[in-house]
């Protein structure tokens, strides 16, 4: 298990290094995720222990948001001052995103099905 945790850390470290040295517009951990993903593609599968390490990191993903979220106490004044633009923007934009993504996907999968009439469905 420890070796897979190490692999995850190494991916992140290399990711951070690539982003900093190449000046990429991408967070380091995302570059690390890409590296691990490429590794999995090359290897053609997820080793069971790697799966277990990843699942245990992700099972309580929402806990990991908490320390950053508590930082809201630093921004109470700003949020109060801009409460209207922030709340309208969050609600409208989230619902719009759900509508656009859902409609495009349902139209496109209908078209796909029609073009492959005896498809694997």
């Amino acid at each position, binding site marked *: 298990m420890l070796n897979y945790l190490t692999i995850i*850390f190494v*991916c*992140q470290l290399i990711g951070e290094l690539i982003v900093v040295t190449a000046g990429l*517009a*991408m*967070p*380091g*951990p995302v570059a*690390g*995720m*890409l*590296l*691990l*993903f490429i590794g*999995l593609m090359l290897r053609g599968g*997820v080793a069971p222990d790697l*799966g277990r390490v*990843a699942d245990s*990191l*992700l099972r*309580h*993903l*929402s*806990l*990991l*948001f*908490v*320390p*950053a*979220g*508590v*930082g*809201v*106490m*630093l*921004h109470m004044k*700003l949020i109060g001052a*801009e409460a209207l*633009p*922030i709340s*309208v*923007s*969050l609600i409208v*934009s*989230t*619902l*719009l*995103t*759900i*509508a*656009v*993504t*859902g*409609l*495009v*996907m*349902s139209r*496109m*999968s209908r078209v*796909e099905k029609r073009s492959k009439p005896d498809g694997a469905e």
Partner: protein
Amino acid sequence: MQNLDQVWVYLSSSPLLHLTMTLVAYQCSQWVYARSGMNPLLNPVLLTIVLIVAVLVLTDTSYSAYFEGAQFVHFLLGPATVALAVPLYRQFDKVRRSALAISVSIVLGSLTASVSAVAIAALLGASESTLASLAPKSVTTPVAMGISEQLGGLPSLTAIMVIVTGIVGAMLGPLVLSLLGVRNMAARGLAMGTASHGIGTARAMQVNEVAGAFSGLAMGINALATALLLPVLWALFFG
């Protein structure tokens, strides 16, 4: 015997207190959420944050003192982001068949999320650092915070935007999709995951297994798409 004040001074200078507080508050919130039948209004992340902020304000503790302990939890966001490659890979195989439809929907969703959030807030007079903090709000927190920092936003403000976005999507998303007549479970899941990341995915999983899998996939791809597209888009408009 030491008096209580001295004990408090000793404890609050050690990282153990605030680390433990974070874990205990989270578990209490999980329990309340489960007991409520997973009521989206009692989202455990939101509840945990409210609890901790209340305790910190009551005990007159600064955020930096709290973060001394909580940083150990915060640090794991990076490795957890890397670990997202695993579920992404697992689902990548399953959905390779509709790869085109999935990529087009998620990229359009990602653009809609950032552009509409920034446009609406800008029209209503938000400051530029608030706009930068809002732009990546549909992406899972660790990635959103990284993007926000790059754009000149406040990562901790972004974390709050992301969490509220997740809760809004989980509460109202299924209703919007039904009103629009989107009944295809893959499309419903994809929409939830693209717009409201992990919190939307948790909701989609409660409803339907297919929707849950597509939502998890959408969350991963959207994180990637937004991390690649948004900084470029931002440089075009605000650079």
